[in-house]
Structure formats: C-alpha cells, structure tokens
C-alpha cells in the first residue's frame, strides 16, 4: 500500500506562472517531509523540507505547505522557470531515517 502518493504524473506550466505540486500521505506518524528534484540521469537533489510542527516553509522561489489534518503537502514554485523542468519527488519520514517516496510528478515549464 502506497503511504506517499503523488497522483499527478505530469504537469505543464507556462514560464513565469506558479507551479503547484501535490502530495498526500496516509501514515499519521510521519513528522518530516521533503521535496527532491530529479533531472534525467542524475540523482535526486534536495530542494526543501518541512517539519510537522510547521505548516509552511519558504526558500526563495520554493514554498512547501503542510496540512496535517488533510495529510497533504504541496510545493509551490513561483515564478516557474524552464530550468525547473524535472521530476519532483515528495518524501516522508516518521522519526526515522527511512524516507518513503512518492512516484514523482514530471513538471514541464513552457517557455
């Protein structure tokens, strides 16, 4: 059973607009969440994380929102740039080092 779900396999956004990537989880013991970006033939690159004691974390153009009651988190990228085109993975951990990953969302930013 998939504990971390990314239900949108792909997303296309116009350059300069907002990209919103979504992630749902089922395990209420998860207390740490991360987003990774992955380019073809490269490993996942850490983007941003959030602890369950917060509901928002910002880093430049990237903001992660956490809604614990809905077991939902999202990544906002504003403004989107063509270099943001990649596969984005959501990951969660519950007081351990075992990251549970979603299946990824492929973002394409159109110039």
């Amino acid at each position, binding site marked *: 059973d998939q504990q971390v779900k990314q239900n949108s396999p792909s997303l296309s956004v116009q350059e300069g607009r907002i990209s919103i990537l979504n992630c749902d989880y089922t395990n209420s013991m998860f207390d740490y969440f991360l987003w990774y970006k992955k380019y073809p033939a490269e490993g996942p690159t*850490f983007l941003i994380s959030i602890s369950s004691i917060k509901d928002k974390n910002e880093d430049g153009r990237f903001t992660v929102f956490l809604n614990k009651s809905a077991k939902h988190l999202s990544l906002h990228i504003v403004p989107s740039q063509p270099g943001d085109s990649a596969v984005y993975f959501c990951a969660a951990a519950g007081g351990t080092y075992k*990251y549970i990953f979603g299946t990824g969302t492929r973002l394409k930013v159109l110039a």
Partner: protein
Amino acid sequence: GAGVSQTPSNKVTEKGKYVELRCDPISGHTALYWYRQSLGQGPEFLIYFQGTGAADDSGLPNDRFFAVRPEGSVSTLKIQRTERGDSAVYLCASSSMTQETQYFGPGTRLLVL
C-alpha cells in the same frame, strides 16, 4: 564541496553474475543509505549504515544482496546471482548524522540481461 559519488554510472551484466556497486559519501558524513529506484517508481530504502555497521538492512529484498562499509566511509553494495528483476537505478545517499537531510548521488544504472 564534493557531493556523493557512485561508480560505475552504468553496469550491464548477465543473469547469474555477481556485481559490486560503490558509493563514496560526502566527506564527514557518518550516515549512509542505499535505495533502489525501479522504472516509474520513487526510490525505495534498502539499507542504512551508521559508521561501519549496518544499523538497518530491513529493505534488502533477499540474501543475494549485501552491503559493507568497512572503514566508515566508502560503501559497496554487492549483488550475487543477479536476476533480471534486479535491473534498476541504485542510489546512495549520505547525511551528517542520522535523521538529518539525506543527499543523493547520481546512481548506478544496473541492467541485467
């Protein structure tokens, strides 16, 4: 500074052969992790090292898989009697301490024919 490095970047082998995949973590990182990513999936945890010892190998799929980290730095993932289903990208990650953010290497793409 240098990130996590993995060699080889690609490995093609025949069913039944033995392979070794190497991971060089970020200097000073004590925790090291191996994950496996199959096509269309996210990475899945295999094994975790704290220092030289395998603290958790619960993700290893069967006893054909084994990993070592003899000096607490470089790690080698070993797969015996490879099967076609072992084909995947094997990712290594490291963190400064356990439960700190994990930083991934570029992966080794293993293809078993």
